């Protein structure tokens, strides 16, 4: 597989990572997502990692970069479904995923994104 598909759901983008990504694939995803946010004028990105059995510092950094770039482009990012064993390992690895919102599942992730978009509209901007 050389590309992870990006789904458009209204004003949000949904990515479900279903394979053990090699590093180039992760970088391609990062680029593709940035391009899609711009193209679709998306307000939010949901990244479902519930099937990921491991997040190392490379993937952690990728998730952080996606969130930062999305923010610059006016979109919020929520990482969804992180397995508890992955979270425990991340803590010991010493990785802080600064700036990354998480949610238990896609539904809760949507709730979080909608609230964020609503809040930033009320404010005019954040």
């Amino acid at each position, binding site marked *: 597989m050389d590309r992870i598909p990006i789904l458009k759901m209204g004003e949000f983008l949904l990515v479900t990572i279903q394979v*053990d*990504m*090699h*590093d*180039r694939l992760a970088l391609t995803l990062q680029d593709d997502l940035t391009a899609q946010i711009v193209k679709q004028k998306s307000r939010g990105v949901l990244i479902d990692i519930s099937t990921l*059995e*491991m*997040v*190392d*510092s*490379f993937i*952690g*950094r990728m998730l952080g970069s996606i969130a930062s770039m999305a923010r610059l482009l006016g979109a919020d990012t929520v990482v969804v479904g992180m*397995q508890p*064993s*992955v979270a*425990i*390992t991340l803590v*010991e*690895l*010493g*990785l802080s995923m600064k700036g990354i919102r998480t949610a238990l599942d896609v539904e809760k992730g949507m709730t979080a994104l909608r609230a964020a978009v609503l809040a930033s509209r009320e404010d005019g901007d954040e």
Partner: protein
Amino acid sequence: MRVLESESMPLRTSEDIVLVRQAVRKKAVALGFGLVDQTKIVTASSELARNTLDYGGGGVVELAVVENGRRSGLRLVFEDHGPGIANLDLALTDGYTSGQGMGLGLGGAKRLSHEFEIASKTGEGTKVSIVRWK
């Protein structure tokens, strides 16, 4: 420490890192590691495999099932003939990277393992060995 079985895998491309992660997971499951322990050793292997590739210019990893008295465990030895590490203390410091990384690979792999050894000579290469006991 007695070696019960061992196998070697090349580390030449970023796909090889994925294969190593999967092989480590398989061995950890076979040894009866719990899910968190599996995840820890797989994550450590991914960090070290990437270093072998990115900084060591590629190399090999040896996966071994080991035994020490009544304990069994998984030992991984990563070896390359790259430039080596001039300052080991610095390399082991959390947050230090000479590249684009997060500087957590070596320190993180050490924490995620029960035993950790590193030997490196400038111009000759680097060898990192970790063990996680069941």
